[in-house]
């Protein structure tokens, strides 16, 4: 085993770097920039049962050290993802991917999960119960521990794949929700999705986003993500995939020290399409710098 490899339920990763859902499309377009097979895995764009256009534009605003998005789960629907997108992906990617699934009702989630589970390149389901940009479902499910429990349990019954549940940071007590989804059978926890924020255009006096509010991501949220991963690590026994503002290899280490087994990189991909490649290449020398032989040994180090 190489010094960068880590294990998630049903996924053996060559390294802990996973592009985050929504910031890497369905992956194949990034092979214009580099051979994406160097990635640990990747989480594809949030997919729903039916095709969705998403919200009106503007969907993007900038804020200090962060960005807001209100995409609203634009995606071609799970059938097209299975039959078109993942087929294109297979031509350039030989590893397993993580299927990020959203929905408005329990039935939607279950059906989408059932369908995507047929794909032989999907290694795990990432249950997105934390999208702040949709009216029904999404974050509403992820901010209520009982719904989160029930949905996780229901989805688990409909797939042979491990289910990673992606949590929202927009809650009073994320530990409580993490424990509930663990109890419901979740195999791992992905955290954090975006915080909710807004920007206002001083010239027009109107919110910049057509949808008013959007999800805040990028360096601005890193310390919040670290704290929540650190907290949840103490409360659950399943692995955590940490994310939020990771921009470089140092940030990867910090997130793993907090308790993450692997990390996802979101916003950084949008600013530099080579971000994940650069981070993977940077990692060995950063490990050397801190005298770390093997990246697995640092998971949760801040708790020692």
């Amino acid at each position, binding site marked *: 085993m190489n010094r960068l490899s880590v294990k998630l339920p049903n996924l053996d990763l060559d390294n802990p770097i996973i592009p985050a859902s*929504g*910031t*890497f*499309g369905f992956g194949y*377009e*990034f092979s214009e*920039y*580099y051979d994406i097979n160097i990635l640990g895995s990747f989480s594809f*764009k949030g997919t729903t049962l039916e095709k969705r*256009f*998403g919200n009106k*534009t*503007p*969907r*993007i*605003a*900038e*804020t*200090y*050290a*962060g*960005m807001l*998005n209100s*995409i609203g789960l*634009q995606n071609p629907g799970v059938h097209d993802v299975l039959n078109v997108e993942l087929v294109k992906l297979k031509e350039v990617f030989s590893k397993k991917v993580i299927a990020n699934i959203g929905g408005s009702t329990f039935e939607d989630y279950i059906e989408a999960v059932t369908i995507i589970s047929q794909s032989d390149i999907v290694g795990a389901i990432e249950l997105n119960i934390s999208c702040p940009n949709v009216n029904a479902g999404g974050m509403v499910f992820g901010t209520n521990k009982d719904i989160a429990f029930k949905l996780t349990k229901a989805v688990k019954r409909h797939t042979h794949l491990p289910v990673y549940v992606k949590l929202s940071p927009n809650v009073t007590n994320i530990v409580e929700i993490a424990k509930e989804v663990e109890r419901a059978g979740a195999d791992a926890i992905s955290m954090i999705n975006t915080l909710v924020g807004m920007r206002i255009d001083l010239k027009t006096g109107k919110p*910049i986003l057509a949808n008013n509010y959007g999800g805040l991501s*990028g*360096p*601005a949220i890193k310390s919040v993500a670290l704290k929540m991963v650190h907290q949840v690590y103490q409360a659950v026994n399943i692995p955590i995939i940490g994310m939020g503002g990771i*921009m470089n290899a140092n940030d990867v280490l910090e997130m793993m020290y907090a308790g993450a087994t692997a990390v996802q990189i979101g*916003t950084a*991909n*949008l*600013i*530099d*399409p*080579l971000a994940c490649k650069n981070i993977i290449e940077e990692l060995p020398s950063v490990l050397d710098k801190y005298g770390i032989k093997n990246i697995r040994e640092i998971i949760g180090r801040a708790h020692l």
Partner: protein
Amino acid sequence: MNNKYLIISNDLIAKDTYKLIFKGDIQKNILPGQFINIKIEDGYKFLLRRPISICDHNGNYITIIYKILGEGTEVLSKMKAGEIIDILLPLGNGFTIMTEPNKQLLIGGGVGIPPLYLLASKMIEQRIDFKVILGFNTFEDIFLVEEFKALGVEVFVSTMDNSFGIKGNVMDVIKQLNIDYDYYYSCGPAKMLNNLVKTKILGQLSFEERMGCGFGACMGCTCKTKTSSKRICKEGPVLESSEVLVDE
């Protein structure tokens, strides 16, 4: 992939408007109407890149023209020859030059004008006949007019406040001078583009949208067309008039 480019010059050419020339190892084919995406600084104050159209391209040199519109472009305007900037290029689809129509028009408004310059050069190379209409707000805003003329094409200029050329916007020019055209290429304010689509004459229009990535990854810039949805940064910024949904 090395995204570092050297600034050759960065000069004020009209009110709040700068012309920046940079140089680098530009291996790729550049089409008129494509754009670049600039990282204003290394830090995270301006986290996102700024999209700016390619105005001219010559071997390893690219010219852009931009207006100070906010904090990012303001910082950009202060950069000096000799400094290095991080740019992704070329992005987007670009204009497709049509050879069939024989009364073609290039219609630009304000900071939508720059991409039409490279288009005009290419059309001249292909010996296509066309006219140019450029609309500005006021005399102080005017730029690129001389450069278009130097290409040897007929150029009409309008200003909203009648401080130069014809009074009004580009549509007023067409009406007043009774310009006859059967195809157009346009870039400019959303309202101008919308009015052009309404004319039902066929053409290509370049749109602006707030972007997350600029290269197709985030779905931040998607717009609905008559038949599908398109990412302005990838399947755009140039759309055909026939597919554009009109804003009534």
